[in-house]
């Protein structure tokens, strides 16, 4: 069996050491760093891409939050504006109502004043008529010629007595 021929051992061991030594040296100094470099570059690239994707996602989330905040803000503002408008219109309505009431009051007063004036006038005319009537009546019935002043005085006292 050639494997048991001890005379070949030194040569085999020597060339094994040389060959494996050279291979290990080549791999350690050139081969392995090159492969490691490629794998690392790829890993870095993937990690960088993932990082960028993460950053973009964060940014998008921030933008979404901003937008939501903006929407909420706009809604709040719209609500406030609505409330203000409601208050304003309510105040306006109240004011108008008050004005209307005032003008009605005014008209009522005017009307009352007019009625008062008409009544006063009517009463004064009535007095004149009464004076005239009492003069005429006393002239016809009693044959007395009463002066206008006396008749007016009598009518006034009679009226005061009646009152």
């Amino acid at each position, binding site marked *: 069996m050639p494997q048991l*021929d001890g005379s*070949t051992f030194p040569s*085999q061991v020597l060339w094994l050491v040389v*060959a494996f030594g050279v291979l290990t040296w080549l791999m350690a100094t050139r081969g392995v760093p090159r492969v490691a470099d490629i*794998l690392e570059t790829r890993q870095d690239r993937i990690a960088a891409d993932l990082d960028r994707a993460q950053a973009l996602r964060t940014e998008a989330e921030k933008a979404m939050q901003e937008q939501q905040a903006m929407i909420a803000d706009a809604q709040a503002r719209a609500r406030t504006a609505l409330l203000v408008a409601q208050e304003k219109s309510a105040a306006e309505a109240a004011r108008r109502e008050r004005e209307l009431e005032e003008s009605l009051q005014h008209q009522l007063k005017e009307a009352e004043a007019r009625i008062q004036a008409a009544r006063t006038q009517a009463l004064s005319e009535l007095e004149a008529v009464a004076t005239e009537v009492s003069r005429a009546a006393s002239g016809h019935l009693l044959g007395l010629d009463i002066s206008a002043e006396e008749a007016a005085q009598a009518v006034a006292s009679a009226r005061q007595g009646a009152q």
Partner: protein
Amino acid sequence: MASPLDQFIIKPIIPIEIAGADLSFTNSALWMAISVAAIYTLVMLGTRQAALVPGRLQSVVELSYEFVASMIRDNAGREGMKYFPIIFSLFMFILFGNMLGMIPGSFTFTSHIIVTFFMAACVFVTVTVIGFMKHGLHFLTLFTPPGAPKAIWPLLVPVEILSYCVRPISLSVRLFCNMLAGLTMMKVFATFAVALGIFGFAPLLIIIALTGLKILVAFLQAYIFTVLTCVYLHDSLHLH
């Protein structure tokens, strides 16, 4: 008729003799050199383009790298990655030695016990030295199985020491025998195929099947040798 063992004969190509020792450059040395050249060429050609998306050759190189890297990580832990270049070289060297040995007319240097034993002995010595350098005399606790009662230590410790010292033998003999047996068997069947003439197709079919098996064994033995190296390295780095 040639003996099936003739394929293992060491033939000097460049005779060299120093101090009475025969250090000739032989067919074994030639195929070691071819293996080294093939590995170096593969790795260098594969990484030439350094593409982000690897091509076919680059994939082969990257796969080998990742294969050995995961083997070390899984079996020796992260600390073992320090020894990556030498373990990667070991795996590729044995793999190429086994695979190139499949070429008819070539020489399989891993079919010689002195080669596999020398490699296993180097692994054994290196791993033991690493163990003592890292843990000092505490490394000897490797021989005291944890959880075992102290009473049976006198029985267990010699067994542990024996099993530790047998490692280089089992490691080398496993690889050597697999290569030897496979190649011898193929040669025997090939002899039959020639001798049987027209009926030689039957052994020929067996040879075809054996070739497939041999490729598997060539890979598997390289893997086993390397993975056991990683396991031994793990013992040295982490004790248990």
